[in-house]
């Protein structure tokens, strides 16, 4: 028996020794930073801030692809801009696409459902951006920053970053407000886990975005003083101006006066028009450009993805088009219906330089949406430089073109429209000066006082801002999106165009989100 007890005690000893080994079960992930090690310096904050902005421009953590932010959608189509652009342009008269990717033709047919991967992807992209911003805002709370021993200029810089992040979040919420109406709502006060966020609505969200933008104004850099690509006071004002212009749609209340106030504030901050309209969407549009207020930045070598302006350039080249004009190769995807070229006196730019179409073997009529040659190609986005050079990518695949989210021309147009729609604090004469500035740059003769109407504005917006992601919002504001009073080829899936249900003014909350979060209620009609 003694022997047995020896065995038992040695077994116990073994167990004790092994229990010591239990700490071997605490393994750490190589090549990553525990969250505690990230926010120890201003540089760490800056790298997360880069992700906040980068989440709007790129698809993930690996360029061009391979480690995406958003799941359940092909990574190449999961970036903010590509999805936003599709939702805002393919559903309108400004664009058609030849491809057959799942759900993409639904935009023309206006029969998307809550399982459409594109509208799903955009919803998840926006909520991802919000969650990321929440994290940064949580971690940059002034008390936390000082608690980490960061003070002085560094702390001030982090304070500014925090305000910028709140701006980015407000922008993402504006997209959700405009396209989805009543998304799930989270702030920095929510945890990270798998809880069920509550649902918001347009009125609450409008108030929230407005409040946030006003609250951060003081902490943002003065207009035109921030690093290129980072938001300043003018970016916040621009978003407020856009929000107020559409307030009637969002909350059924006119806010044209406020739209005038904030667009004017931007205009007066010292921005100017880039001298040549055709330089706006070129590879070196970040250089000597007084017009851009806030951009999404791309680089053909250092900031690569399959969406963004890489998509806009490649997808718009196909057929027999000369590849060197746009500077990248062609994927043969997007063109426009004749509604857009018909707004110009001439498709080749005579009389209005803003008309930039590839004609050649392209047909202005669209018999077959899937045929690239049906519909004029738009060559607004070109990865060439003003001096005739190409972009930095030696393989001519990725674009350097930065995408202007806000530029001065939009502020001019907001001002003019808000004045015409009865806002106070502005003047017709001033509006005409702005509109004539745009005409003049496009080499269109100046218009006289009393010339323009509200309807002129929407056409002028199309001429000036087409393919920059405005069209759906504009058509809705002008009651032309679902109505049968304004048609375009293949609207609603019919060649001659057809009106559709008013339900289509909002995109559905993704079915997977409705399923995952019991707090959410779908829009009636979906």
């Amino acid at each position, binding site marked *: 028996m003694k*022997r047995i007890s020896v065995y038992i005690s040695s077994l116990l000893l073994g167990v004790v020794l*092994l229990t010591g*080994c239990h700490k071997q*079960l605490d393994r750490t*992930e*190589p*090549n*990553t*930073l525990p969250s505690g090690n*990230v926010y120890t310096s201003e540089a760490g904050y*800056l*790298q*997360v801030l880069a992700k906040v902005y*980068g989440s709007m*421009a790129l698809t993930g*953590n690996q*360029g061009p692809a391979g480690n995406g932010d958003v*799941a*359940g959608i*092909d990574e*190449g189509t999961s970036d903010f801009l590509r999805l936003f652009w599709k939702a805002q342009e393919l559903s309108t008269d400004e664009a058609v696409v030849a491809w*057959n*990717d*799942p759900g993409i033709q639904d935009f023309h047919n206006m029969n998307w*459902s809550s399982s459409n991967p594109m509208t799903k992807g955009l*919803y*998840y992209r926006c*909520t*991802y951006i919000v*969650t*990321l911003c*929440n*994290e940064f805002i949580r971690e940059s709370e002034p008390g936390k920053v000082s608690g980490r021993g960061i003070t002085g200029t560094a702390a001030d810089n982090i304070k500014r970053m925090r305000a910028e992040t709140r701006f980015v979040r407000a922008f993402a919420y504006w997209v959700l407000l405009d396209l989805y109406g009543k998304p*799930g*709502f*989270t702030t920095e006060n929510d*945890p*990270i886990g*798998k809880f*069920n*966020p509550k649902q918001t609505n347009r009125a609450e969200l409008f108030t929230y975005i407005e409040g946030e933008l006003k609250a951060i104004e003081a902490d943002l850099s003065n207009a035109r003083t921030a*690093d*290129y*690509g980072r938001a300043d006071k003018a970016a916040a004002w621009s978003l407020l101006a856009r929000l107020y212009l559409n307030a009637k749609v969002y909350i059924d209340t006119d806010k044209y006066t406020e739209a005038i106030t904030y667009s004017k504030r931007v205009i007066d901050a010292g921005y100017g028009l880039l001298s040549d309209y055709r330089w706006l969407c070129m590879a070196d549009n970040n250089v000597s450009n007084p017009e851009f207020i806030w951009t999404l930045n791309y*680089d053909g*070598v250092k*900031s690569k993805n399959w969406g963004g302006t890489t998509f806009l350039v490649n997808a718009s080249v196909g057929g*027999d088009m*000369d*590849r060197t004009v746009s500077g990248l*190769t*062609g*994927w043969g995807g997007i063109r426009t219906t004749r509604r857009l070229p018909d707004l110009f006196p001439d498709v080749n730019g005579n009389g209005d330089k803003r008309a930039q179409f590839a004609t050649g073997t392209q047909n202005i009529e669209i018999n077959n949406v899937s045929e*690239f040659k049906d519909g004029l190609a738009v060559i607004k986005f070109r990865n060439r430089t003003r001096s005739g050079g190409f972009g930095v990518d030696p*393989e001519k*695949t990725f674009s350097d073109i930065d995408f202007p989210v806000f530029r001065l021309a939009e502020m001019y147009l907001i001002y003019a429209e808000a004045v015409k729609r009865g806002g106070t604090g502005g003047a017709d004469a001033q509006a005409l000066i702005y509109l004539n500035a745009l005409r003049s740059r496009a080499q269109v003769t100046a218009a006289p006082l009393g010339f323009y109407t509200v309807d002129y504005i929407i056409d002028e917006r199309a001429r000036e801002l087409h393919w920059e992601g405005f069209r759906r919002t504009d058509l809705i504001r002008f009651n032309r999106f679902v109505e049968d009073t304004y048609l375009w080829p293949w609207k609603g899936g019919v060649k001659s165009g057809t009106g559709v249900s008013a339900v289509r003014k909002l995109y559905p909350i993704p079915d997977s989100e*409705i*399923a*995952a979060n*019991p707090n959410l209620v779908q829009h009636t009609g979906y």
Partner: protein
Amino acid sequence: MTLHRLLARAGAMALMLMVLAMNVFAQGKTVTGKVTDSKDGTPVANASVTIKGTSRGTTTDAGGNFRIAVDNNNAVLVISSVGFTEYELTVGAQTDFAITLAAAQGTLNEVVVVGYGTQRKRDLSGAVATVSSKDFVKGAIQTPEQLIAGKVAGVQITPNSGAPGSGSRIRIRGGASLNASNDPLIVIDGVPVDNGGISGATNPLNLINPNDIETFTILKDPSAAAIYGSRASNGVILITTKKGKKGKTRFNFSAQGFVQTPHKLVDVLTADEVRSIVNVKGTPAQVALLGKESTDWQDQIFRNAFAQDFNLSATGAFANGKWPFRISGGYLNQDGILKTGNFQRMTGALNLSPGFFNNKLKVDLNLKGSRTTNFFANEGAIGNAVTFDPTKPVNSNSARYGGYWEWTDPDGLPTQLSNRNPVGLLYNRDNTSEVYRSIGNIQFDYQLPFVKGLRANLNLGYDVSKGSGTNIVSDSAADTYRRKGIYNPYHQERTNKLMDFYFNYASNIRAVNSRIDVTAGTGYQDFEFYSFNNPDRRYNGDIVPESEPNFISQAPGYTLISYYGRLVYSLANKYTLTANARTDGSSRFSKSTRWGFFPSVAVAWQINEENFLKDVKVISNLKFRVGYGVTGQQDFPELYGYIPVYELANNQAQYQFGNSFVNMLRPSAYDATLRWETTTNINAAIDFGFVDNRISGTVEGFVRKTKDLLSVVPIPAGSNFTNQLFTNVGNIESKGLEVTINAVPVKSKNIEWEIGANFTYVVPEITKLLVNEDPNFTGLAVGGISGGTGNTIQRHIVGERPASFYVYKQIYDANNKPIEGLYEDLNRDGIINEKDLYIYQSPEARYFLGVSSNITIDRFTAGFVMRGSIGNYAYSNVNANMGVLRQIVNPLGFLANGSKDYLNTGFVNNQYFSDYYVQNASFLRMDNINFGYDAGEVAKNVRLRITANIQNVFVLSKYKGVDAEIVGGIDNTIYPRPRTYVLGLNFDF
């Protein structure tokens, strides 16, 4: 003592012993004998003949003959062989013996390898199946799992493709998980091996030489497998390799030559058919693109491939029989049927199993090593051979693109979205790799003094592999022309270390007619996966800008610590109780969730031992078993899913602030509450044997429920840094029935005929899938297909089998031709949209079966193995993607070939989601027909056996694609499984 001196001393001792032994022999005499089976007089080969009280011995040859020297007439010979009762005789004056061995009564004391030790077969109460080398599938077997394909009920082995050295998908009872691994745990000589792939090897198991394997034991249900608790949810396959044997050194040499032929390819349009279609349906611009050639691209890329396989082994004992050994070497050289592909494998294995201190300490050392070299043919050529325009020639008149004809844009560069010349894809690429793997273990089993029946067992093992290679694509190749080719080396290492220690106590308690067998132990296993990160290089070695990695290497890994115990109690040789308990800690979970507890209990009742049946001679075995057990699962891609970390973006995903670019830091999604997925299983079975087990078998039923399923599911947006989180959700449930029958219809002196059949019915069903259940949830999209971007054809959906097809219901015209774009409005809302998609069939069979038979007539043998699968459906992605007009004349500026199915449907555009493409892929495959001839002693002491095989002889199936058997059910131009003709010679000497 240094190792050196130890070896020197051992050598000197061995020499002395040999001298001594020779002296001894000189005084004795030599006896000979023949050992036969008492039942039918057939010779018993490889029986062990030893001299009692010494360590001298020999084994019988294939004819049952032996020859041994004895010291004097008092010597006692002990003759034993697995499955037979041991036989002893005193030599006396006789010099030649005819010995008959009787089959061990009801294979009473036969033992089966189970986790951490062996168990008497009669005590088994769980679902355990054993296949030993004599029942292995014969022929040109390049990868171990193929040895048992079709042989075991409930075990489904599907070769992934016909590429040389490629692996198989192994499923035991269909798999218990959704996103976590459904692969069974594979344990080789006590070392749970790393199932994960390594760069440069298509299949980790192909690094093991099938010729070195003695038995497979498959633990199918948790009551059997729970001893491997943490990793046993999908069953366990225990592989035991061949061991050394006492006796005269014997050699075996085998040589096989085989030829593989591609016997079925995708049915594509001919060049003339393409010309007539384009002439009628194409635009003038497209007609102008037509060429004048007639090229059969599939014919251009496939070939008849040759291979040789050589194996040499020696078995015997060193040091006067004290150190039994087996040493073997193998060499396989196989070309792929896809041109340029080649696979070569060199293997070596050593087993030493000496005993010390009167055999109280037994040591078992196994070392296995292999080196494989691969030339990976570019499998992209297979799809391109289907789609490449057959009116074009193989070669162009220009040196550009390697001299191959390619589609070009107006600027002369390769068309961005077009397909590529398949021959160019093959010959412009040079992707070679070299992979080393070694698996080894040393096991010490010590009979402890003072307490009879108490053993301590220590097992130390490792499994290391190292793969490296280089992928080179010429800068002239069209597919990488813009990036100027590829020159990318890669390197990866995987290390798996193991320590296991247990006590075992076994004793008969005669007073109560009982036997008790208790095991208790602990284990530690550590995995590390090391890989280098290299910049992306062009063919000339230039680095693609900003492709330098942030980190030059990484070595993620995980650790498991386990404590386990097993009790086997049997009463009166009739009633057996087996209880297992195991607790595992995994580094994949947080401190509060990391330990899982996995118990099991099973009982068995040997009914034919009861008095009321004991005298019924016709029943040789009747046993009822029932078991219940819980197992865990932690084998999923996320190694650190519970830890919040930030991850640095690569240099091609920087973000520009002002004039500088900043590397982004991204918080990773995590689930701090991640915990074990657990599977509960109930298993009930009857084992039977009639007429001396001439007819035997098992009927087994099971219900398996997995809860806290680890899966990637949509979570509420905004609640984490992702919209689809890897977390514990959902349940899955499987029910199944397995029937195994083996029969020996004829067994006489010269003729033996065996038939084995097994049948499995298994249906898994997802019973819960979301954190918050929602009846309207249309499921998780899975099963990505070719065509468009991001299209999926399958769903995980509650109430259905995993990965069921999710499609529209096609409407047909009067001639039974599908009408393009016309589907049934299933929800009757007047619109055809996603709401009309429905679940239609699943890629997993409900029934599968295996039939094999073997007949021996004198010196001839013949046999076959057949496998079948009923109720599995496949989605013909080949037809859905390539069988439409848009494929042939597309708007992208090039022509392509299409699948012949276009002639059936006439579809203009792709109708990816039509259920027309989901087709019944039930099949019956004649896997193997084999013949053998025993040429007997062709030279002094040299015996020869000649074999011939045909593998993949035919497939009976309604499915029209290349092969009905498709892992995952999406038929998308797979590497076709060739037909193989094998000729082999096997020498024993």
